[in-house]
């Protein structure tokens, strides 16, 4: 057991030896904390300059009619009113929520199944896991271009050829107003599931093997083992996966931008693409910033809400 140094009251002088030892420790402590701060400083400064200041600048801009050269004009919450009163934004919100729910649940389910299938120490499994993880580390713009080719909407398109062998199709995929959003959701699931798989795999390693053996002895079915052992043990991992996936889905941009540009007929326009076209194609930075702040607020609420629900469930 180590003795913790106690702070000597100012009124009572401490014995010299004690004082010397205490002083040395204190100096060492302050040097250590200074070192910690020095190590932290570069990252903190970078984060501050490239993340937090732009974020606050975005909040500021959302209250102005932005004219960088002439000087901004304060308009209060007018930009927010414009966003909330814009039918296109509301439609985009619907599409964003649809994509958020389908991609989050889809990627979670597929990631979970992949993790269960690929858990183990064999070299072949390691190779498979690496191969399946590739979509995560591939640039989304490249992924989008590849899927655009796969989705080619004629009978001789790669996916339509497969459907043709099954006596189905051809489908319009990205070119159909009813199918475009689903097609984008599939791309999101395909590129998001392996990431979830890795987190769930990490969670699975923490499950006590003896529980499975005991359950086996007691005659539990595979489903019961999943339901009563695996899933409860995975709760922390699932909370992380759900939170990250929900945030990622709300910020969907690249796949939509690359695959459809928001079309056809606006059927795949999401919050971020609408924001982008307002900010960078129409130069309406104020309204685009207001939309960005609203997205930030929703993301924050969603994150805090997910954490709160998970904590309450864990406490019960």
């Amino acid at each position, binding site marked *: 057991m180590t003795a913790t140094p106690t702070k000597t009251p100012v009124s009572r002088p401490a014995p010299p030896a004690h004082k010397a030892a205490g002083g040395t420790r*204190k100096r060492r*402590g*302050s040097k250590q*904390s*200074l070192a910690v*701060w020095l190590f932290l*400083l570069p990252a*903190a*400064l970078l984060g*501050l*300059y490239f993340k937090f*200041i*732009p974020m606050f*600048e975005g909040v*500021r801009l959302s209250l*102005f009619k932005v*004219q*960088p*050269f*002439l*000087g*901004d*004009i304060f308009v209060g919450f007018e930009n927010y009113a414009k966003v909330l009163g814009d039918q296109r934004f509301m439609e985009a919100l619907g599409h964003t929520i649809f994509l958020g729910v389908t991609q989050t649940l889809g990627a979670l389910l597929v990631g979970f199944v992949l993790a269960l299938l690929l858990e183990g120490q064999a070299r072949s499994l390691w190779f498979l896991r690496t191969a399946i993880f590739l979509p995560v580390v591939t640039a989304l713009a490249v992924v989008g271009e590849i899927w*655009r080719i796969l989705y*080619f*909407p*004629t009978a*001789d*398109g790669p996916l339509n050829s497969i459907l043709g062998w099954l006596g189905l199709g051809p489908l319009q995929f*990205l*070119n159909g*107003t009813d199918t*475009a959003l689903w097609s984008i959701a599939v791309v999101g699931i395909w590129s998001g599931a392996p990431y979830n798989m890795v987190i769930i795999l990490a969670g699975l390693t923490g499950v006590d093997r003896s529980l499975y053996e005991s359950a086996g002895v007691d005659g539990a079915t595979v489903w019961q083992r999943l339901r009563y052992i695996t899933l409860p043990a995975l709760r922390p991992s699932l909370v992380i996966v759900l939170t990250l996936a929900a945030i990622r889905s709300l910020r969907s941009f690249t796949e939509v*931008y690359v*695959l*459809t*540009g*928001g*079309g*056809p*007929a*606006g*059927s795949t326009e999401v919050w971020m693409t609408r924001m982008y*076209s307002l900010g*960078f*194609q*129409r*130069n309406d*930075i104020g309204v685009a910033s207001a939309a960005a702040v609203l997205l930030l607020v929703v993301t924050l609420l969603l994150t805090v809400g997910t954490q709160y629900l998970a904590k309450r469930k864990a406490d019960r």
Partner: protein
Amino acid sequence: MDSKIRFRARVAVALSIASAAALTGCGSGPSAPAATDDGQPIEVWARAGTDAATTYAAMFKEFTAKTGVKVNFQGVPDLDQQLQTRAASKKLPDIVINDSAALGNYTAQGYLQKIDRSSVTGSDRIADSLWKETEGLDGASYGVPFSRQTMVTMIRKDWREKLGLPVPKTLEDLAKLATAFATQDPDGNGQADTYGMVVPGSTERGYLGWWASSYIWQDGGSYLKDEGNGKYSSNASSPETQAGVSWVKQQFCTPGNTQPGALTAATSVASPFFQTGKAGIILTGPYNFSSFDKTPGKDVYEVIEAPKGSKDNTVLAEGENIYVTASNAKKDQTKQVIDYLVSQDGQKAGMTAGKQPIVRVPVNSDVDAAAVYNDPRWSVVQEALKSSSKAFPSAINFVPFRQAAAEALNKIVADCPADNVASGLQALDTAINDELNSQNAKS
């Protein structure tokens, strides 16, 4: 943690916030900051990719050799975004060369200085109609014409001849040719894998509104009607515009007349259909000559005069202007740069000095495009520009109108069974009027 250390850390964080905030510069003021001469070489920005930048670089090298005036040139592909960044720091580049359509946006943002037309040497060699396109809402010139071009129709000549069809003279002919290319196996490979027209039908950057404008004009319609004095009204729901949009919709809804995926294709996705021999008709700018001459090959495609609609064969004209920014205090150097760029030497250098012409059709009437390029196809472009072309209004910020048109048309053509042309254009009419009001340009 030791309280002194904690205090120091807080001070450090506070100082870094303060310095970073100062660096990001959140100033605001009622008017453009005063221009000052920093003594550096004149800074010129142009929206240019790698190939175009080589031409600019060669052109300015020649200019410096002639005049001794040094130029700091930057080819910036995402010019408008970069300009916003520079605008925020209250120091724009001295000269910007960009689309003529950017004028309304730039004047609204206070980026530009007025141009005294009479001070430009050789201003009389530039057509009045081109100078007219550089006028802002107040009637003053805010740019100098530098280059112009029109959209041209290019057709797979070998396919057309193989099927024994004539050069299309009307929009009906063009539609029939597109159907023939899609259904009669013009490449002779025994498979139904060819299409009629290449269409960038995406809403991204307003592509569909841009592509369809020529066909709408050809039927006598338009998005906007110029009421004079910088005022406009919407013309989107007129019978003529409905006729033009109906023709466009017919192409999207006749299987094979447009390439697959046209509804979501930007030009970068659409053009390869023509290059790879999958589609036989494309309406595009002459800047594509150089790449199409390589594939599908110069001898297999032809450049034709635009087919006629029910009214005429108007095509979209576009171009680049030279803009002098509000930050520019280098009067003498600026004059020398402008005088050179619109001179015969400058225009010719812009056409031939690098990998890609940055002056497509010269604005200087003493320069003949077909002769300089030694290519009769440029005569088609030059002739169309002179007698049957129209530009989008540049005094107002046209970007939102093009975007609204693309979004409305994309909705109309995406739903083939629906009888939605009139209702869709009525919605566009409302959107255009709202935008005109917000730009204070409604008649």
